[in-house]
């Protein structure tokens, strides 16, 4: 019984921890702030790709 309770407690802590983490990312828009940093790097990468550019 004690083992089951311990597992349930750990599971509850994990769920609460994940909720706090993801909700913080959500409410402070951290996902978009991170991807906004990635975009300029990606655009530089696209400029370097060899392309068969023509009409």
């Amino acid at each position, binding site marked *: 019984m004690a083992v089951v309770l311990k597992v349930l407690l750990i599971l509850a802590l994990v769920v609460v921890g994940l909720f706090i983490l993801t909700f913080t990312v959500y*409410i*402070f*828009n951290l996902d*978009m702030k991170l991807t906004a940093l990635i975009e300029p790097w*990606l655009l530089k990468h696209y400029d370097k790709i060899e392309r068969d*550019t023509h*009409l």
Partner: protein
Amino acid sequence: MAKEIGADRLGDFYKDGGKVRKRREWRGLRDTMYDYSRWLVIMGTLAKFVMKPRNVKAMFRYRWMANYLAVPMMVDRHTQGLRGEYLRMCHTEQDLIIDDVAKLLDNLFRGDRRIGNDREFSKKVVLVDENEMTAVMMGFPTLKGLSRETPSTYVSVLLNQHAAEHYIDLAQQFGLAGDVCPMPEAELGVSIDDDAPVLGACAIQCNTTCDGSLLGNGVISRRLEQEDGIPVFQLAAPLRHREDDVQEYAAQEIRNAIAFIEKHTGEKWDWKHYFECARRVNVATECRQEWLEMNRTPYPQVFGSNLALYTETNYMAICGKIPEFEKADRKLTELARQAFAKKKMAAKEYRHRAIIWGVQSHYYMDFLVWLLNCWGIVPLTDMLSMVSTRRIAEEDTPENREQAIYDMAWLTENMIMRNRTHGGYRVLLDELWEFTQQFNADMVILWEHMSCKALDGMHGLFEDRARELGINLVWVSHDLFDPRIISRQGVRDQINNYMRSVMREEPLDPSLEVLHDEESW
């Protein structure tokens, strides 16, 4: 941070010159948790997409894929200020569209010769235009009708206002005119830049509406046919679509298109599947009509971008082929009925009832939400949502098989935009004033897409009639895909100036009047 509609200063979420917003809205516990749960679902959709190595490869190959970094922000832009049923309607639509676009991208990259190179799959793909009614695919359940232009240009500009600039500039560097519509010009730029996935057994292009579209399609089809070996059919639907004497020609074009697809894919037209799709088209039409009926009352429910974005997707790109959209139609109708019964409103005050006419700015699709939140102007319906309401044959009988050809022709002629910008004086001008009366509107917001020659020359005619009827007519100029010509603030200023100088009103939310979002996605 408020539960009540209209209690927040929504402009405070913007950071001057920033690409993204400072934080997301607190909408009260229930609505915030709902929005958060939908954000998790969107993150799940994106995670599922990037788990496939070929999609990651595509991310590093195609420039327009960078715009998909902004998917969650697009949803935030359209849900701004929404609560209760309106928030749920928006997520029902947007989350489904995101899922549908993710599947479209996945399929494109699966067949793409540069990425997945699944040859057997590619033989079952028919490429279609972005701005094309996909009715001719309703009887081919084993084929995939995929549009390359939808994710590369159309959706990209919804995600990121600057998405098309690179491609527009490239097309002009190659000598194409700068005064054609930037949408087909950007699509052509993608082709010139060798930035379109290459796949498919054949392609169907459509004479959409304009000089830019014909120009772009001509060059794109040359590359498809002569370099990629993908045969292209030109589906030339009549422009005078209200005339009886063009219908037989339109029907023959449909027969020819179906025969072309059968020839190049080896598949046969399936009437059972066609009529199942036709039934779903009728469900979508019935639901849309019910929403529009509600919008004629003092308590409109499915309106603004909730109506516009969904109709564009469901009517033209889906066209009864995807069962999930029928479920969404019914869910949206249920939410609308609930809110209507409770006489709910999406903003704290409705000051003006507006019909939005003309072709809207793609780089500022959330303008309709802004109109509501900033000035209390309710966008009851828009030109692109006023599409065919005719029921099509849905029972499989010998007579209906012949009628179905005419129904597909009718839908193709009446695809979004071309059913109003072409077809004569009545569909563009006269019917607008009929709608203003039916919807009890006191205002018309008239988009002036400056590169759209279909609407040039009508300016004075609109003004004369609005004056006669006592309707407040507000012109809003824009350049569809190019915010460098008229910025989002330039769009807003045209409304701000009218509301202050002509209407002598103060905004509902002054924080939204001037926003420094030039660099924003």
